């Protein structure tokens, strides 16, 4: 199942960097080497087995932008599932940015009226920490106004921390067909093994695709933090020509197991009951694998 995802925004706003980090295993520092994207770069990313994201990274230089809205309009804006528009928070030409944004929205309304719209306020690391919330809220208000009557979801992001993962997790989550079913199955699984929390990650990007919570946790940003942490570890392992298969952390307060689950996902189980041994949890995970694999294949067959 192919889903077309448009990535647009001014030149230098960070589109290619983001894409490289999430989908191409770049570390944040490596993105310095990236040059300006010429015209449109298309890439196909396999996600969760049955989903293929057709990513259109549209170069943001003015010459290209003008072209997109005129000669290439049909080609670019047709059949779009998701539009991701990236704003550089430090941009001094906000008016111009808005102008392009609105042209995009116009074209989308005409060609793909059902597309979901996500706006990323990017490079938030350049703003001082105490001002970030306020500035983001202000921009969000403005953009929601400009986007009317269309609905847009705004996120703040930066390639230097976990906010990037949060934004992209949410975006990708909306594209997964069987998200509710997956969640229900995870919920049942969590009940059965008495886990506090279960997270399901996509294998290559480590974005959280589903989760189930039995016990409340105070840290609301933990999903993206964990994505970030594990992704960093995965990258370090690949530098040493190896990769990790599973992680087991046991102490008096909790047991955490991260393991390969289905061919496309990793699972993370957090159990705080000390009586449940890791061996038992591992067995349960292996047993449940088959069930979830079947879910995936039936999903693939359906599409």
């Amino acid at each position, binding site marked *: 199942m192919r889903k077309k995802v448009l990535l647009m925004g001014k030149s230098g706003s960070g589109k290619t960097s983001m894409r490289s980090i999430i989908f191409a295993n770049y570390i944040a520092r490596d993105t310095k080497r990236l040059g300006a994207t010429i015209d449109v770069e298309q890439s196909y990313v396999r996600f969760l087995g049955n989903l293929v994201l057709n990513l259109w990274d549209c170069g943001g230089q003015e010459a290209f932008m003008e072209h997109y809205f005129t000669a290439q309009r049909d080609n670019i804006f047709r059949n779009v599932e998701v539009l991701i528009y990236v704003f550089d928070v430090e941009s001094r030409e906000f008016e111009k940015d808005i102008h392009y944004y609105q042209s995009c929205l116009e074209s989308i309304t005409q060609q793909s009226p059902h597309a979901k719209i996500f706006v990323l306020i990017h490079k938030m690391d350049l703003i001082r920490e105490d001002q970030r919330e306020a500035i983001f809220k202000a921009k969000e208000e403005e953009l929601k106004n400009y986007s009317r009557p269309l609905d847009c979801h705004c996120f703040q992001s930066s390639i230097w921390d976990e906010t990037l993962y949060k934004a992209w997790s949410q975006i990708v989550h909306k594209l997964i067909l069987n998200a509710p079913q997956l969640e229900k199955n995870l919920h049942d699984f969590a009940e059965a093994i008495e886990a506090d929390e279960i997270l399901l990650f996509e294998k290559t990007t480590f974005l959280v695709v589903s989760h189930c919570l039995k016990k409340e946790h105070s840290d609301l940003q933990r999903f993206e933090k964990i994505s970030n942490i594990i992704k960093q*570890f995965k990258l370090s392992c690949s530098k040493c020509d*190896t990769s990790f298969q599973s992680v087991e*952390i046991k102490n008096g307060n909790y047991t955490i197991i991260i393991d390969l689950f289905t061919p496309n996902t990793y699972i993370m189980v957090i159990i705080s009951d000390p009586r449940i041994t890791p061996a038992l949890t591992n067995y349960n995970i292996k047993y449940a694998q088959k069930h979830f694999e079947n879910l995936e294949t039936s999903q693939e067959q359906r599409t």
Partner: protein
Amino acid sequence: MSKMMSSSVIDQTSSLSISSQNILSNGTIVDFSVGSMPANYGYDESFSKEDDEEDSNEESSQFKPRILIMGLRKSGKTSIKNVVFHKMEPNETLLLDPTTKTNLEDISCCSFITFQVYDCSGQIDLFNDPTCDYIALLKGCGSLIFVIDAQDEDQYTDAISCLTQTIFKGYNINRGIKFEVFIHKVDGFPDEKKMDIYNEIQQRANEMLIQQDATESLIQKIYLNYHLTSIYDHSIFEAFSKVVHKLIPQHRQLERLLDFLCNSCGLERAFLFDVASKIFIASDCISPLDTQLYELCCDKIDLVLDISNIYAPKDVEGISADDSSYTCVKLNNELYLYMKQVDKFLAFVCVIRDEIFVENRGIMDYNLTLFKDSIKDILSAQKTVSQDQSVNNQNNTNSSEPDTSNMANSILGNF
């Protein structure tokens, strides 16, 4: 104590260009009975009164070797200190302000050693500054790290002349100082260029030392070591680990313990890490240090610490050290990274093969409890020794060690 130390220093034939690899395979230079720094010049209490920074008097009975970090300005000293000891992200160091005042910090994270790190300002010329008592600083110094910015080629000459001046002054005040040169910021260079820079700096420093040395035998006597480092990868941690090894008197004992453990449990590699700073206190000597495995272990510690921080209950700090806790990472090339906390600051990390781990898990856990006990014994033995020494010192306030006579007497006289 100092007489013993000075004699063993002169006996050491440490040549100028020992590369860091050689150090490990030669075995250690420092003998167990001698600290890298005399236990007590009488400076622990009195000196800290002179120097009004955060020194803690109650700990003066402990061994507190001093590490000075010096170098020209903008060479990277404060960044190194922050990245290694304060878990700062390397890219955040770009936002650091230049250091204006020399900072003293007690790094008490590691059980074996509480060392003081002096981050000297590059803007002040330490030797000419009237407010800075460099003699006292250098007297108590165990290792002097001189940082040279490898990317700034124009400054090489200045840096090297500052280095030679520091070496001369340092050696005259304290024969026991180990000089370590960090050839820093090498992350941008390809490997060949790194070796070229390494050789060039070494050569030029040697030349300048020989040129300026009146006695012409200084080079044989001083301990001078070069390292290629960068805060953007693990090389700075490795280099710092090697510096710290020489300051820990029990280092050889720890290495032997780890060797026993490796042999008896069939481990590929074993490390004793200081969890907070990711410096390894000791590793086994069965094979030369594999940088990749070291990096993997460092990253694993990061992973575990970060996840633990998210899920730990509010009142619990860090990783728990009880016998049943462990962390295990399975890699896809049939290796396991197994980690057990030895005490609050130290973690034992080993690399072991799949089959062996599964078969010998029980034996290994048992051996590890014995290992933990040995480490506790070593720690408490060290405490008793230093307590005895401090008691002795307090009783003999008027005894003056040869090198420290004037200084020690004048300060102690204030009691």
